[in-house]
């Protein structure tokens, strides 16, 4: 069954371990700027918002690719076929969540859910990242987060603008022992 990577900003503490782990697995070094998950930190407000690839059901990056080099695979992952890619960058502009980025060479990269065992989720000690079956609740959370979109700017600018919206809409209340975010 298809599983979704879900981010729960109310639980995120801004430790950024997910981005360290992601880059370690994908790039062989600790380089959060190349991580496939990003954290937008709002230290003053005491809040951090994760940016994750939603593996969109009807992905803009896939539609934008003139070479059909982006596919949705069996697991529901939007995957890039590097052999077909011409490094045109259309997918990067098309992604409205800022989750498709390019190396200096122009080769694009994005989250592939680590083949079904996301390294980021494994490092989250606060339950702010979960990887679970696509059920009613998780689909709803995802579709809520997907509603906000940004078409202008670099990927990092898009992510920041979207995160600001989430920060503003966040309902944060003093917690009781049973508070679950």
């Amino acid at each position, binding site marked *: 069954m298809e599983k979704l990577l879900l981010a729960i900003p109310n639980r995120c503490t801004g*430790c950024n371990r997910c981005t360290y782990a992601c880059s370690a697995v994908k790039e062989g*070094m600790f*380089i959060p700027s190349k991580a496939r998950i990003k954290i937008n930190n709002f230290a003053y407000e005491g809040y951090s918002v994760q940016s994750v690839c939603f593996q969109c059901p009807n992905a803009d990056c896939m539609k934008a690719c003139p070479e059909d080099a982006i596919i949705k695979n*069996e697991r529901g992952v939007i995957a890039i076929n590097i052999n077909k890619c011409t490094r045109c960058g259309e997918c990067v502009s098309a992604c409205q969540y800022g989750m498709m980025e390019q190396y200096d060479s122009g080769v694009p990269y994005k989250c592939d859910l680590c083949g079904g065992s996301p390294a980021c989720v494994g490092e989250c000690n606060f339950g702010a990242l979960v990887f679970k079956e696509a059920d009613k609740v998780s689909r709803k959370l995802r579709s809520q987060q997907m509603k906000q979109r940004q078409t202008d700017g670099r990927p990092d600018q898009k992510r920041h603008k979207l995160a600001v919206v989430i920060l503003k809409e966040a309902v944060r209340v003093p917690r009781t022992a049973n508070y679950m975010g």
Partner: protein
Amino acid sequence: MIDLEEYHPDDYKLRDIKAAKKEVDEIVDIITMPTEKISLETRKEISKKTVRNFRDHINKGFLEYRKSVTEATGFAVTEWTGKGSILVDALDRQFLDLLGGFGLYSYGIRHPKIIAAVKSQLDRSPQYSQEMLDPLRAQLAKVLALLTPGKIQYGFFANSGTEAVDGAMKLAKLYTGKKGFISTLKAFHGKSLGALSLMGKHVFRKPLLPLLDGIRQAPFGDLKAMEQELISARAVGDDIAAVVLEPIQGEAGAIVPPDDYLPGVRELCDRYGVLMIADEVQTGFGRTGELFGVDHWNVKPDIMCFGKALGGGVVPMSAFMSTPEIWKCMEPNPFIHTTTTGGNPLACASALAAISVLLEEDLAGQAKKKGEYVLGKLGELQERYPGILANKRGLGLLLGMEFHTDGIGYKVASGLFSRGVITAGTLTNAKNIRFEPALTVPWEILDESLNRIEDVFKSIELPKGKPDEYLYTGQMLHVDLSKNEIQSKTISKKLREQYIGGWGLATKYLYDAVDPKVDPLSEENAVVIMTGPVCGTLVPTSSRTCLVSKSPKTNTIFESNIGGSFGPELKFAGYDGIMITGKAKNLVYLRIENSSVTLEDAGKLVGKGIFETEEWLKNEIHAEAKTLAIGPAGENLIDFACIGSESYRQMGRGGAGALFGSKNLKAVVCRGTGGVQVNEIGSFYEKVVEHTYGNLLTDDNMWAKTHGTPLLVDVTNEMGIHPTKNFTKGVSAGRQNLNADAIDDVKIGDRSCASCPMGCGKFTSVNGTQVEGPEYETLCLGGSNCEIDDLETIMKFNRLCDDYGLDTMSTGNIIGLAMDITESELHDYGIKFGDTKQFLALIEEIATQSSERGKDLALGAQKLAAKHNAEDKAAHSKNLEMPAYDPRGNYGMALGFATSERGACHLRSFTLFEEEPFKVKEMSRAVMDNQNLNAVKFSMGLCDFWGTVDTGIMADFLTKGLGKTISAKDLDKAGERIWNLNKLFNLKAGFTSSDDTISPKLLKKTLENGPLEGRKFDTKAFEQMKTLLYKLRGWDEHGTPTKEKLSELNLLDA
């Protein structure tokens, strides 16, 4: 693109016999048709249909993991035919075979001699009657008996390797009458329930537990560990039947054991009376350059298992064999282990022909030569592409390439696939890729494959970094504000070894650059900011960043460190540290964006609070830029001004903010997009996981996650050392308003520093006032110490101090003193204990010097008290205001405050939880050990709240990260060296042993309430402790390190 969801009208619905007949006829027609007559169209159909059939009838999962699907374009790569080392798929696409079917194709694909023998046997008799005696099986057993080492003579034949292992286990149990087995970690012996029990990997084993009882796994290659398992098994009554091992671990990545390992295991088996089973399923029949793996070490096992290549790559075949002595146990009832199809005539014909090829063509010899050649070539590749190929290993043609991560490995495997080279390596398991071609592989194909491997390596994009810099970036930014000059210089490797990083390296840089007698606020003083070697990695709590300089508060050398994310950002920008000298003409800020480093005018930020400054800089540079900034207090050179970062984090103690102010430096802002490299990311990551779960996230440290520092409010109150009413009392009446429960009630979120999985920061909100904190020290010194027990007021106090840039600890301590002075009628500062309004008003007055009393309080506790002849009211050491642990209740804390390099600091030695708080000997020793350990910890950049970390763990991180051995002892020594260098600075600055004390108030006055009420501070005991501490440190009675000590620490030239 391969459409996995493609629908076909013939797809399976439900039981349908007619459809079955149609399907079967179609495929049989194809099978029997001459290959050349099968049209391309038909073969395309077969390819598509195979994907659908895998999806509907085999296992969808394979489609997601196999490169044949994930990496193919148009049509999935579908098995069709092949010859030698070339595979051809259904669409006539050719592939070089480096996988060799995991060792199945030792003789190449379809070796003519083997095919011919099997075809002839097929025409004669393909199976047995199950009654008559079969000649081929018996003959094969004889041939194998002649080939195998030692007394191996009898054999049993089966179909797959795992059956052979299961059979061998049964034989060992029967013969010895014992139940247990010892195998090795990362071992792979097969996946049937018996063999699976031996498995050395949790992935395949754990979901199927419980398996066979009495199985143990020892690390492969470790004789001592093997013996230990034998000893413990015996001790607890788990009788061991046999040790089972692969002579060279295959699945684990072609791991060759040390030369003494197999002979050693043989000897252990003899000594402990257990059998030795060699699983030669993958290593047998020439694969490793000898006939069998054990032959490399002339070891004679009791039982051997064969499979894979035994069947000649044509018919499945496996066997286990043993000696006449052992085999005897199966003679009374030969039916105790049988099989219908094992050792059938086709398989035996195949195996016999294969052995003939093996000997005729000297496949073992070929494997040896080719293996050495390939290993040499891989070595060259490793040198050329160290960022990709981490290691290469193996014997003969059982070779393994190890990549730094699964991600890189998969990039290689998929890159090879698209270049027509078949290797192992799936999405989730690609870190180790085996290189296991046919032993007959032509040299041209080997060369071509190696070329294509290099071609793939070339195409892989790795983030750029200096190739030989691990953990450290190796660069120090030198910023001369007077000359407006910025340079990046290499940090010598010798210095890194001796001083680690962080506190240590910063101390060394300062020591070499600054005269200890210098005025701290003069142009001649320097400020060194330094990260630790593991900063910017997944090592938990590793983001602490140190500042070292001469303190305007204490006139000593001092270190102040901060969490958050500034340190990692600096590393990602490419620098381990920053050394700031001189003084700018106007207020400036230092702007670091990777290699672009400039000094910018900060005119617009004059007088601005830290919050606004940080926001402005973020807008100017990048939303994720990180800053170190000062507020008005720093600009006004208040000597307890702090440097703030991410709003609520501070380098608080010692006046770091005034130092920035004295240099006309408003802020350092940094944005970095580079990375931190480690020598070997896989094993480094493993160490991180091991120590994070094994040591950090354990009960001892969990308080930080659950409660954070407010937990200490109740703890210190219980102990009677909770500073209350300007250090006159040890127990506070209003504690329930400020303890961990109170904080928890108003908490709206947890906050972490970069890399920390604990998140001790509690973000609170009361009536619209929000702050990360307050932390324990603020709750006490800005709370009970001023007799304030309203949480909201303390949160406001916290925010105001953070924004104006004042250390909450010193500020709370000093305001408490001003209240005391006022109530004692020595002078009227218009503020009494508990006056929340004046309490909050004072912060701005101090920071901006906007009132007379603000100016007075800015003097600090010692000078303020002196001004009013109230020396007996000030709580400090070396002029640094006392933190929130009354030393009268714990002599170790007192000694720690007195002998810290920066006055009353609780972060050098924290003996609060020692069992005997007043014992001289124990406390002196504890203080020294703590001081040395913390010198290492803060040099590594780790957080104080990783309370259980030791130099062994820290050495582990450095060893794995740097790729060279660093021992705990090296670090212990470095810690002592760092502490001594700090001491030397202070001695040269003019401090003597008489300065190593705490203020008179604490020595002479007694506490007025709580468990320690009326208890006199034992000054004699205190002096004894000090003397003992000096002695333990190898210092003379004046606290000066002896020549011998300095020589021991390589500090003579200092």
